[in-house]
């Protein structure tokens, strides 16, 4: 098992003893020991995955890093958050996924309108299995818990990832004022219901809905 450690909040250190991790292409900043870097075509989940990625446009440029020693990863000084998976699924935008244990399976899933509103297409990346993953966010992310009694609404541009058994749907806060040409800038939200965790970053990506 590769060991994930954070050095500060913007560098991920992974200790490896002959095992492998999958990482975003070009995210390596330094390594010691002996490492090999191999590009994986189409996000590294076999031929089927490659075809789905081609079709879904959820492009993920992934490399496999294997060896003995410590490899350091970073992505444009973004904050890094470690996620420990115990068999559940992590839903994350491909651009926010930095590194996963090689034992974790990556795939794509249909998100529908939500993805389109974020300018991320209709699909998002899933990571499944047991092991560690590292996701990046623009600024330090907070983890918000959703329970049956407390659903959560998130600005689509501030959403990073989520885990657990959550239903998400798109809701619009459009009222007559919005039609009068005074949008609040909060016309659309993603509503999460169920049990799980949502990662939210303190910055908004430019989204189609964000201008309304």
């Amino acid at each position, binding site marked *: 098992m590769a060991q994930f450690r954070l050095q500060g909040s913007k560098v991920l250190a992974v200790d490896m003893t002959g095992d492998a991790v999958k990482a975003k292409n070009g995210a390596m900043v330094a390594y010691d020991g002996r490492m090999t870097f191999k590009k994986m075509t189409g996000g590294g989940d076999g031929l089927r995955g490659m075809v789905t990625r081609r079709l879904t446009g959820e492009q993920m440029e992934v490399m496999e890093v294997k060896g003995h020693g410590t490899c350091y990863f970073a992505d444009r000084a973004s904050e890094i958050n470690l996620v420990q998976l115990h068999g559940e699924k992590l839903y994350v935008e491909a651009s926010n996924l930095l590194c996963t244990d090689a034992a974790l399976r990556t795939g794509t899933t249909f998100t529908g309108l939500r993805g389109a509103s974020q300018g991320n297409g209709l699909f998002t990346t899933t990571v499944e299995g047991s092991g560690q993953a590292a996701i990046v966010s623009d600024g330090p992310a*907070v983890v918000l818990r959703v329970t049956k009694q407390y659903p959560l609404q998130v600005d689509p541009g501030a959403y990073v990832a989520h885990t657990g058994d959550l239903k998400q749907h798109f809701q619009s806060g459009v009222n007559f004022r919005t039609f009068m040409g005074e949008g609040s800038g909060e016309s659309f939200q993603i509503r999460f219901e169920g049990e799980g965790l949502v990662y939210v970053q303190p910055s908004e990506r430019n989204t189609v809905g964000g201008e309304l």
Partner: protein
Amino acid sequence: MPFTSVNSRMVRAQIGPGQRMYSQRGAMLAYQGDVSFTPNIQGGQGGIGSMIGRRIANEATPLMTVEGSGTVLFGHGGHHIHVVDLTGETLYVEADRLLAFDGTLQQGTMFMGSQGGVMGMVRGQVTGQGLFTTTLKGQGAVAVMAHGGVIELPITPQGPVHVDPQAYVAHRGDVRNKLSTALGWRDMVGRGSGEAFQLELSGQGTVYVQASEEKL
């Protein structure tokens, strides 16, 4: 005290029935509970009169009214957020630096030229603040955005404080400000230190300075 800091770039606000808050449009990151966000045509309070004032003063940052009961997370553009608690005094701050503030505070605009005459106007230009700034007065909390972290420097009658105009964020209290120039002969012959202008704040209060010379 409605704002609690989540991390350096995010604040959490508790809102209850009958309470009201204003925030910059689009600054909501997430919320739980039953909260509504309504755009303000006039950008805050004060009705039409103040709206015209604002339009002329170009201090019309689009705001929205936040009402209901629940918790709201605010943040914007990954900027650092500094919470200022006002206890009756006035806070002078650029409208575009306001992330969110208590609805109980009185909003107004102030003409920069009224302090320091012509130099006051020049000051506005140098600090990139224009001729007007926003004032918030009363009892309540304000969340202000800054580039990099914020430090608070006390201003006492014994000692004025000098601030790089580009690093100035806001100030509160009974403070006079003037632009002092430190143009020596060296600047004339082209060896400027890059610190030709300083903002001199004197009186009684606090000035907020950011760890960067970048605007938001």
